[in-house]
């Protein structure tokens, strides 16, 4: 599942993942994404932006971990170079790792393979 308030970002990452054969669900902010999770969506991987309206990425990560069946799901935070401080915070909230924007397609796929067994 891909969570970002930027439609461009959603589109670019989704196209890369779709081309690589992954099914991609999107949400434009943490609240919408969390709704999908509580509604029963069980993604293998969550890639989420940090700064979003309604619910930021870090809160979202923390909330996702509380959902049944989502304790172990890898979560990657999309960060900018300048948000390095956020990464530690994200990890404390349960995130697995991070991606630095802009994300090159090969880098994205590499990290997906790194964090998702069997991906």
């Amino acid at each position, binding site marked *: 599942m891909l969570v970002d308030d930027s439609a461009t970002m959603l589109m670019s990452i989704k196209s890369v993942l779709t081309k690589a054969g992954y099914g991609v669900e999107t949400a434009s902010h943490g609240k919408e994404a969390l709704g999908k999770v509580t509604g029963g969506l069980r993604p293998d991987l969550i890639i989420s932006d940090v700064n979003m309206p309604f619910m930021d990425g870090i809160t979202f990560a923390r909330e996702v971990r509380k959902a049944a069946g989502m*304790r172990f799901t*890898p979560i990657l935070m999309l960060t900018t170079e300048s948000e390095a401080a956020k990464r530690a915070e994200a990890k404390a909230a*349960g995130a697995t790792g991070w991606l630095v924007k802009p994300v090159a397609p*090969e880098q994205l796929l590499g990290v997906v393979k790194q*964090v998702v*067994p069997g991906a």
Partner: protein
Amino acid sequence: MNALLAQFLTEADDLLAQVDEGLLRLERAPQDTDLVNGVFRAAHTLKGSSGLFDFPELTRLTHAAEDLLDAVRGGRLDLDAAMTDDLLASFDLIRGWLVHVTSAGRLPATAGTAAGGLIERLRRPLGGSGAPAAASAAAAADAPAPAVAVAAPRWAAALGGQWLEETAGWLEATSATLRLVRYTPDEDCYFRGEDPLHLLRQVPAVDRLVPVPPAAWPSADDYDEYACLLDFVLATRAAPVELAYLFRYVPEQVEIVELGASALTRLLAGEGTDAGQEAGQEAGLEAGQGQGAGRQAGAPQAGQEAGAPQAGQEAGAPQAGTAQAADARAVLEAALHTLSALPEHAAERATRLASAGRAVRAAAHVLGRDDVPRQDDPRAVAEAARRLLEAAQPVPGPPDAATSVSGDSAEAVQVGSRTLKVEQEKVDRLMELVGELNVAKNALTFLAASAEEEFGSRLLARRIKDQYAGMHRIAEELQAAVMDVRMLPLSVAFARFPRLVRDLGRKLGKSVELVTEGEEVMADKDVIEALGDPLVHLVRNSLDHGVEAPAQRVAAGKEAVARIRLSAVSDGDAVVVEVTDDGAGIDPGAIKRKAYEKGLITEARLEAIPDAEAADLVFLPGFSTAETVSDVSGRGVGMDAVRASVERLGGTVGISSAPGAGTTTRLRLPLSMAVTQVMVFSAAGQRFGVPVDTVAEAVRVPAGGFGRVLHQDVIQLRGEVVPVIDLAATLHLPWTPPEDIREVLVTQVGGQKVGLLVERLHREMDVILKPMEGLLAGHGAFSGTALLGDGLVLLVLNIKEVLGVAARAA
């Protein structure tokens, strides 16, 4: 004497000369920062190189000199006469030592005492007694590889005694090091989506991986299956940067230590595993910095090191320090190596490719670059790796990098730039071997063809072609590298002209100024050498026929001093050399008349030739314009000889002239000439080649598309009428052109297109062209032969001559 020492002595000689010259000039211009930098760099390089050998006094003395020069360079000290004396004395002493080294292979026994006094004098202006600096110099000499930890951490024992023993022996034999990693996942790591085993699966080049169970398991009832209790210890040949990249999300959970044989041996012997020692090792990769004291493992020492833990683990931060850049380079080179030898088996291939891709991404990350390759395309990955390698330009430094002073990369590069003087024969031999490699490589294409045609295996053919593609790329790079070694600057060819112009000018009573430009343009040494005679000819011509006597010049309103300009510019694969004079120029009418009088042109052509093209007539054999034969320009073997020798080199020559204003002769030569690309085709069942640069295009024309104009076959090519020559007929080979589709190779010579009717087109190929020998030597239609991979001798056509033969036959 070993080759390295011999190299050092040669280098030291040059460096000492630079230092001497620099110091003497500095005395006169003490403020010249370039001079100071130059002397400093030379001393720095000398010190660095000396560290490779067991010459501690030499290292200490050069180090002291370097420190003094560094202070001067940094403006902290003004160089005075006494200091210069001391520096000169130091380098004189060193020169004496090196003589001794040359004969005895070691420094003289007195070196220590002789150096002592000078070192003290050199250090005095710096204020201190010099003791700390001297100590650090000594330490630097003792510790050539600061990144390698001196003792193994205790957890390394998990790898097992037998493995440690075998590995220690292997590391000893190869002087290699291994990276040991301890990965201690957090108990709750699963709840961040981490799977340590999955991460470990991705560590490249793992030699041994051992999961370490907890010392005591909880009882089965209390067991929490989602609390991670396992540790992992692994040994890998992967570079620190790769590891840092892989473990970048969990740096606080891993320790990485680089170890050599001795540390493992000590671990086996039970040394170096007390608690204090291990605390020191927590500093990870950087732990070796204080290794001199590390062995005694004094508590304060260990404490200090522990005060800076994580340093090694943070190595993945995107900043390319020298050590990291070196690591990155090693990784990239390894990746390129992997890519160059990808196995055929699909799964293996994918694994190797993926690991190479990961390595390249890791290196990109460390270098702070985003050149992340497509993982599934070996070429793209290799391409990216090469780009990154360029970016990670080696910053060569002395082996004791810990004490190297400068962070200025431009300077550092210059410090390390080394020149190797190689005998020409060796380079020529290398070139020959490259040629043979090309031939052997080309054999693969024939093998592929026969695999498909004779053995019916398209799969095998394709695999061979894959191999061929890989070899082709390497061969091309190798060839370019060797070519590069052969490159010389044009200044070599221009060197003799100042003197020649001066002497000839005096002889002819003409006053001439020579201007040279583009001396730095490089070309193959064969080209440079072959350029000599034509250039002499052209310059003589300019002096003799072009430039007027001073009185004439003044009368014509010109400056009395004439000017001859020799210039070179590179133009793609070619170098363009021009000889320009501001003399009288060529009078088109006079030229045409002369050519007619000598019977070189017919009356009809005399009328037809436009003035602009008249100058070209000087290239006709037997043409000479001077009213009197002078002993300067020779006797009638003028410009036609120039043209012949330039064309032999695969070049062209042109002349342009403005009457009264001067003449320019332009030579265009290939930058290199060792390998020729030819288009291979067959005619009447035989294979021939033509140089690719004469081929404009290849077209297939239906027989009906052939027309006839003035007894000449022609085809229409985009509205242009192109004459077509039946090559088989021209060479008197029995062949009948097909009645359906015909292959025509359109060549372009001298601006004119001519088609060759051939039987079948094959492919382009790199060949080493050899001159014709034996019976065919006099046959002008061929410019040379080349050995093909299947052992066949390919005749390479001289298109121009072929057209001549065809024209005579018509």
